């Protein structure tokens, strides 16, 4: 396990960031969302936190699994035999399961892990699961540093998967909120599942509804055992901290975690795209469109030029999407671009996002967006623009150094992605080498129709009319 420690003694506070180099791309087939599910379990306490009697609780949790195994067997047989005869047996097992869960819950001190953090003045406690990584973070007053070492090491050393099936419902609710009840969530899900045919970037980090609804505890345990090994976790600590003390505490607490083999990378390689793909999402909303192009991963030598290209398109008030689509043509309420989506660890997407103004169409916006792209392929960006972007990227870096939370997060993610936290700073040198020719070259190479996926929303009534119209022809 690698630690990166930054001393900043201006205030007696310290921020922590644990970066686990595993995310939803590592979800096994049929278990999409399991990385995210484990992230939720990491707040459920440990063998020493959150239980009134851990040995008894452990026995009760094992009993839950035994009953669940039998229930699943019965359900499986019933499905095969289309059997009503098994209905009673299933109902009985369901009742037994409910009892077993109740028994296990009777040992739980609810939300004890959270309570300890909050009552000790922890702020900003949360976690996020992305495609490439899972991140855990919060800040403490600096006299609580040892408490963080204890709490964080134990949730990775001795987590207890308590209240698993209730939390599964919570995770299901999270999907309803983020995706199913959000037109923009649905649009992004459609974009990813269309753009990628094989690579797991095709799944949203939360997973698919039916996978979530059927998670088993053993699946989350297996994920944890495989991916939460010390060599796969990097920790950033920034603030009022003494590196010598940090090193001593790291050895004392995290040293207890047994080493394990570094887990494999995803083996599936996305095959080349053979032409444009388009997907419609019918939703009760004003229109949105996402346009995405295939691009290489973050280790590609073209990565810095693609970042600069995204700035040319969407940086501040001078990016081309803003000045042309929003400001001058007034086609869009907003128009954005992102160089690396949904992750950079594997080949991914260069994303455009278009929000038409009232009375303007997606078609007009899409065409205007392509006009800009085509121009970038034939006409070099002015040197003044390139220089401006380099200046901005530098200043952005300076501002990132202004907060403990930002420092802890950035340094860990750069360390993991590029093997060295210094890349956060040396990246500027790479940006400095990018020329107007490079920007034109990567635009020509990657922003091509064959590698394009377009996802867009349509209002329900309009799409019905369209259908009738096409049927009438």
């Amino acid at each position, binding site marked *: *396990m690698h630690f*990166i*420690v930054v001393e900043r003694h201006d*205030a007696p*506070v310290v921020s922590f960031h644990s970066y686990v180099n595993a995310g939803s791309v590592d979800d096994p087939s049929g278990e999409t969302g399991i990385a995210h599910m484990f992230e939720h379990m990491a707040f459920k306490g440990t*063998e*020493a*936190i959150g239980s009134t009697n851990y040995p008894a609780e452990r026995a009760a949790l*094992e009993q839950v*699994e035994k009953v669940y195994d039998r229930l699943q067997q019965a359900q499986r047989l019933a499905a095969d035999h289309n059997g009503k005869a098994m209905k009673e047996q299933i109902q009985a097992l369901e009742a037994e399961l409910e009892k077993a869960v109740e028994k296990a819950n009777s040992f739980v001190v609810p*939300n004890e892990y*959270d309570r*300890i953090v909050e*009552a*000790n*003045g922890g*702020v900003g406690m949360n976690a996020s699961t992305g495609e490439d990584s899972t991140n855990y973070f919060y800040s403490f*007053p600096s*006299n609580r540093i040892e408490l963080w070492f204890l709490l964080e090491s134990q949730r990775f*050393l*001795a987590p207890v998967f308590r209240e698993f099936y*209730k939390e599964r419902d*919570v995770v*299901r*609710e*999270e999907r*309803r909120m983020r995706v*199913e*009840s959000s*037109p923009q969530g649905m649009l992004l899900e459609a974009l990813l599942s269309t753009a990628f045919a094989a690579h797991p970037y095709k799944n949203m980090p939360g997973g698919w509804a039916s996978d979530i609804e059927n998670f088993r505890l053993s699946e989350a345990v297996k994920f944890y055992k495989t991916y939460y090994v010390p060599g796969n976790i990097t920790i950033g600590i920034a603030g009022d901290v003494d590196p010598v003390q940090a090193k001593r505490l790291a*050895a004392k607490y995290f*040293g207890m*975690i*047994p*080493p394990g083999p570094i887990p494999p990378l995803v083996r599936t390689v996305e095959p080349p795209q053979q032409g444009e793909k388009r997907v419609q999402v019918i*939703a*009760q*909303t*004003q229109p949105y469109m996402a346009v995405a192009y295939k691009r290489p991963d973050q280790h590609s030598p073209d990565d810095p030029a693609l970042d600069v290209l995204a700035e040319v398109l969407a*940086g*501040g*008030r*001078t990016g081309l999407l803003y*000045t042309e689509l*929003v400001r001058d043509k*007034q086609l869009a*309420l907003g128009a954005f671009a992102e160089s690396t989506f949904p992750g950079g660890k594997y080949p991914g997407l260069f994303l455009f996002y278009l929000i038409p*103004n*009232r009375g303007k169409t997606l078609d007009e916006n899409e065409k205007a967006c392509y006009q800009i792209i085509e121009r970038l392929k034939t006409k070099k960006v002015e040197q003044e623009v390139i220089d*401006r972007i380099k*200046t*901005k990227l*530098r*200043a952005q870096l*300076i501002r990132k*150094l202004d907060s*403990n939370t930002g420092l802890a997060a950035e340094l860990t993610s750069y360390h993991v992605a590029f093997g060295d936290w210094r890349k956060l700073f040396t990246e*500027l040198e790479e940006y*400095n080498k990018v020329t107007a020719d490079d920007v034109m070259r990567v635009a020509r190479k990657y922003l091509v129709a064959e590698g394009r996926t377009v996802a867009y929303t349509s209002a*329900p009534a309009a799409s019905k009319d369209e259908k009738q119209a096409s049927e009438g022809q």
Partner: protein
Amino acid sequence: MNKSLVALLATGLIAAGQAPAPKPAAPPPPRQSQAGGEATLRTIPDLPKYQNLRFAPLKAIPIPTPESFTLPNGMKVFLLENHELPVISGFALVRTGNLFDPPDKRGLADLTGSVLRSGGTKSKSGDEIDEALENMAASIESGIGENRGSVSFTCLKENAGEVMTIFRDFLSSAEFRQEKVDLATTQARSAIARRNDDPGSIASREFSSILYGRETPYGWTIEYEHIDRIGRQDMVNFYRRYFFPANIMLAVYGDFHSAEMRSQIEKLFAAWDYKQDPVPAYPEFKAKAAPGVYIADRTDVTQTFFEIGHVGGLLRDKDYPALQVAANILGGGFTSRLVRKVRTELGYAYNIGAGWGAGYFSPGLFEMSGSTKSKSTIETLRTIREELEKLRAGEVTAEELKTAKDTVLNSFVFNFDTPAKTLNRLVSYEYYGYPPDFIFQYQKAVERVTRADVMRVAREHLRPENLTIVAVGNAKEFGKPLSELGLPVHPLDLTIPEPKPASGSRGIQQQ
């Protein structure tokens, strides 16, 4: 320029005390762990216990004191040095707000705040300024909210002279070019058209409109007809009325020496002596309860988004600290009763919580909010009301009180972890007429809160009989009628009124 930036960056790094990470120590041999099956985990004996940790008292919090002075033109200035990074930032607070919007030109303050920046200054167009600022990696932004307007800037130290001159020009001589007036009104119309795009945001908007009153500037909705009546001259007039030195507080912080910055600011604003009458009081807010269930039916969602509550109070209310503690216990953090019951125990919600809203100047809203699948809507709403009743029925436990107070008191240091936070807070206190030590009064008051206090303020200020419940969801999937909640049910019409046919007068024309 690039070279000097690299140098600055290096300086910043050294100042930040960047310490390379030590190579991780070879871990001690792992403990023998019991073999576990796939479904179970090893059991680790002798885990260190958090209960055994003892914490040294926290180091004293260094609280910087800004320098403050008033310019001859009446502008009050606050300066705070901070030399960690080579950056200078600042903001001007202007006593104005959308509470001053004329009823037939709702949205005027917001549009003025936006075109102030985009429309440029007398000497330079907004587009020219955009490029000039971004060439220096600087930014200037402006906006007008409910009861304050602001223009802010941030830049590298070396560009402060140039950037602050543009900043000054925005305060004293914004130009409101017609093309940017058109752009802003087009965008405002698009925002109206899109206000129902995200079902999650509808509930909080409607909740706030119902409680603050649709006919008051606190709660009304901006429609196309209002935007259609707003022209350039309206914005110019609004700007001229409120943007004058004696009506502005200026705060600047970052890498400078106060004496030099003071003389720079004195020079910068020396010629600006524009005067206006003092700004009148804001329209008063009169609370009016609107108990009932308000439902916006959306057939396209699988979750119901809800807000439950009533009007809250002010920060300066004597019971505010105890109410904060009460609301924390009810729905403040992961440890609160609502999270424990609705999320952890029932698994009905990912997002659930409560807060006692309090404003500096006008009341906030007491709200319990979250989202749950359609089918568990009624039960979730009922459970939340029960939890509110329980909080009023008896005293909270000693443990709950301790956790809630510890949460506030132990994290108190984070109110001071950057000099910018301290400065922002002090300027806000000054702006709203609060004492400079208000936050310490609050800290002491929280320390004194007892279980009896929590019950008393819950009974006095949290009123189940006054609850407004707003739900946005697919009512036919609820499984039960909303009337089961025992409150009158009102459907909410989210239709966006079409603009009225043009009457020929589109705002005040140029004078």
